[in-house]
């Protein structure tokens, strides 16, 4: 029902750069969204047994970790970000793994999925990434709380898009979820989506603040109905960020949304994923519940800052048989 085609605008041809028909959204259907159920205990059980059900070893592990790198939104969202800091991060995004390690693995150059920064750093990042094909994602709409005036939040998106951001990570108004004001949430995302124009919109649910998995599922549906290209767990600033149960809940809504509308929505867990092993579990969760189609950068991203370092060490271990050290890999 959907077709994929190679886009010409993307430069790094080694990645399967495919264009997904964007989620056009559907009218708000509250019977659907509110009819959803999420049994916490059962979801937790599935998540608890999954790591032991799927073991990825040796060359497969190396390949999966390389794939994980291509799906990282390499992120810096700190008050003390400077252009120097952001340029260094961009350089790392373009060369995330030491060349000798890639050579040993027989791999061509890879890059991270995107670089994710605050609005003020967008221009710097776009410039620094020029020619790499790596998109810049901007967190937006009064990130992380999303409580600035609505018109300013919309405006912020427009500014970031103008500055060259190809992806906009917006935060939803959690209060709309907590008060059950689903129409308001839907309208908000529709407005944000419109402001994004061609840029892709990633809706951050801040799942750690939504109170229950059921609410996570409901909010996921409403955001997808409003046309979100991605749904994303967290800002990284909540006390609880991405977890497997939250991820399972969200990707099951993505699967259902695809089954009912034909639109494939992407998924981005963010915050708290810092170990290579954890990234493998996430990938197997996606593979099991959504399928291989989602194991591509345009359908799945990790929002992470320290994950890459751990993956690099694991890859060096795979190549040399010796446990690695952080200082042997370039910082980002």
């Amino acid at each position, binding site marked *: 029902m959907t077709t994929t085609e190679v886009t010409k605008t993307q430069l790094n041809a080694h990645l399967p750069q495919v264009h997904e028909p964007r989620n056009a959204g559907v009218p708000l259907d509250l019977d659907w969204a509110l009819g959803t159920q999420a049994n916490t205990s059962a*979801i937790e*059980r599935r998540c608890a047994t999954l790591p032991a059900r799927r073991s990825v070893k040796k060359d*497969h592990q190396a390949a999966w970790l390389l794939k994980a790198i291509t799906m990282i939104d390499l992120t810096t969202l700190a008050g003390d970000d400077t252009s120097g800091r952001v340029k260094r991060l961009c350089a790392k995004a373009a060369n995330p793994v030491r060349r000798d390690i890639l050579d040993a693995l027989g791999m*061509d150059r890879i890059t991270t999925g995107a670089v994710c920064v605050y609005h003020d750093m967008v221009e710097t990042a776009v410039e620094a990434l020029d020619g790499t094909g790596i998109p810049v994602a901007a967190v937006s709409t009064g990130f992380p709380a999303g409580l600035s005036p609505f018109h300013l939040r919309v405006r912020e998106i427009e500014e970031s898009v103008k500055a060259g951001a190809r992806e906009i990570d917006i935060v939803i108004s959690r209060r709309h979820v907590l008060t059950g004001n689903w129409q308001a949430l839907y309208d908000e995302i529709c407005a944000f989506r419109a402001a994004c124009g061609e840029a892709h919109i990633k809706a951050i649910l801040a799942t750690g603040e939504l109170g229950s998995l059921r609410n996570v599922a409901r909010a996921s549906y409403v955001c997808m109905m409003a046309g979100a290209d991605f749904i994303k767990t967290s800002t990284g600033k909540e006390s609880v960020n991405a977890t497997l149960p939250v991820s399972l809940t969200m990707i099951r809504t993505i699967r259902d949304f695809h089954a009912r509308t034909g639109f494939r929505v992407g998924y981005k867990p963010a915050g708290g994923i810092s170990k290579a092993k954890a990234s493998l579990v996430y990938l197997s969760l996606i593979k099991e519940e959504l399928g291989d189609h989602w194991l591509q950068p345009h359908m799945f991203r990790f929002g992470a800052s320290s994950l890459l370092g751990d993956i690099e060490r694991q890859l060096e271990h795979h190549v040399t048989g010796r446990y690695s050290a952080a200082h042997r890999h370039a910082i980002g």
Partner: protein
Amino acid sequence: MTVKDIFETMDYGTAPESAAEALRWLVDNGDRFGHFIDGKMTDPAATFDSKNPATGEVLAQVSQATQSDVDMAVAAARKAQGKWTKIGGKARAKYLYALARLVQKHARLLSVLETLDNGKPIREARDVDIPLVARHFYYHAGMAQLMDEELPNREALGVCGQIIPWNFPLLMLAWKIAPAIAMGNTVVLKPAEYTPLTALLFAQICNEAGLPKGVVNIVTGDGTVGEMIVTHDRIDKIAFTGSTGVGRRIRETTAGSGKALTLELGGKSPYVVFEDADMDSAVEGLVDAIFFNQGQVCCAGSRLLVQESIAEDFHARLIARMAKLRIGDPLDKSIDVGAIVDPVQLARITALVAQGGHEGTVHQPVPAPNGCFYPPTLITGMHSSAQLMQEEIFGPVLVSTTFRTQAEAVQIANNTRFGLAASVWTENINLALDIAPKLTAGVVWVNGANMLDAAAGFGGVRESGFGREGGWEGLQAYTKPVGKSVAVKPAKTYGKPEDIDVEGLDRTAKMYIGGKQARPDSGYSKAVYSPKGKLLGHAAIGSRKDIRNAVEAARGATAWSNATAHLRAQILYYIGENLSARADEFAARIQALTGTTASKAQTEVSEAIDTLFTFAAWCDKLDGAAKPVPMRGVALAMNEAVGVIGAFCDDRPLGGLVDLIAPAIAMGNRVVAVASDAYPLAATDFYQVLDTSDLPAGVVNILTGSHEDLAKTLAGHLDIDAVWSFSSADISKTIEHESAGNLKRTWVNNGQTRSYAARDWLAQSVEVKTIWVPYGE
């Protein structure tokens, strides 16, 4: 494949667990095993192959036990038992603790060996079987520790013969051995012919734990060895887990032997999904329910019942999920479905699906590899009448039907000869907790499947067997009440005198069925005379049809089982009160019937009143329990009525009846009681007391007649859930034998008489149902 290729395909690859250590262990043992008797391995004799079902390779040669091997094992167990009991629970606890620790220390070896021998995925052996084995020994180390203080009125049974299946070889060993030896029994255990290897490794672990010789004995071999154990006259108790067919034969074989018996048999457990369930989680639950261990699980959720409104969607999701199952090399850590235990079983599953699959639509979204594998299978569109909806397949085959309402769900779920487990999926706690007690099963999982723990009782009703394993209730299977019994003396009956002394107006004692006085179907009565030759009246001679009618009446009186405990208590008190009002009349009747002294007759009446008051008191005090299982949730142990109990009274004219109806009806059972054959008239007087006490019709039915004549019909009746006998007639063997028809519970006196504590009566009057309720929002 290069890293670059895999980077594109994102395949899993293989993640094999090494078999090297386990194979080395086999080699170190010469690849040949004898039996573990009296703390030593015997020399291997006539052997058979133990094979790896995934590859067909022979793993080792295992000995087929002979009668003399079994005799030696029983003798060793018998010799060890006295001392093992005498050292006390606290001393035994230390050995059980050591066993638990050693199982953990050898966890990987045990897991790999189990997977090699059985074909189950290494993930399951490693993450489910072996941890539960260790847990079981830990838990029962605690039970041994507490026995002397907490169970002062119970003692070991003696030597236990234990026969276990091949689906969870070491786990079933643990379920059998741990509680048995904790309580001071010694055991002779036979692992299944297909899967003896972990039991033999466990034998070595027993030695490493310093377990006194003879406490655990393990003999290997096929069903003939099982039969030697079952028929052995120096064994006190048989515990069997396996098929209903074999269980039934064991019930028949052990009938009248005086052996205690617990059976954990087959199932066709319903998996009920309501429209408000979390469908994706319910689909995932089925992976645990029916594809776990290749569906070779007695409590597998093998009958899917989906509400019609969501059935199409649910089946589509399920088929999509099944397509993701990975089936193949059990030693691969990323395998969901391993090998079927043996080609014989594979052929059986294949034949059953070939025979019955056409009654629905067969879905097999993933193919099975060549060899001893069967693909995960869903058969939709089945009806209750389909063969595969009724018969246990014991493979990864799920049959599915739909229902419209909660009531229909219960009706379909209970439309089975089995009653082991059930799953209920709904987000509505009202619905979940309403339906759980209505499902005929020993275990109910709310929003889950196949949850097991040592603290929670496990076991079935109907043809899924009787007895519980795990928890305090599980200890009943390995202990008996302390106390001595004496041989029952047949009651004296008094024949027709030369001159019949007829007193007053004729009073016709009828039987009491469905709240009405009923003439016997036979049309025959027998005269009852006092010792002095006075014609006291006539008692009906009950027969088959009267039993049929009485059981129908009892079956229909379901409201009693659902009545509140408080209501039942009030009625029991009221019966006591009304009996008290007629105490003199009953005392006189007892005296007239038996010729006993007035004071003894009065004592019998006052004891009967006391019994009624005692069990009136118990109605609302036999608490269930919330088991501390290792999860966020509760496992509720609920005491439920057994159902319809048939019972033969002893020859105390009134006490014999009241003793058994009081506890039975207190716990919500309905009773078909057969009065003392010698002295039936007090029991028939008693129905007038019942009539005046607001007891609903059908709750107590009283028959009269020859116990010998009625035993076979009552015990064989397929709609009775338990039969008790305190009769002076020699009917224990008949009852146990006939009970095999529907594998009802039995409690017979074997010609002995003794007194029981109220707790013992209550334990016989309830089934413990374990309801698992995981929670969390």
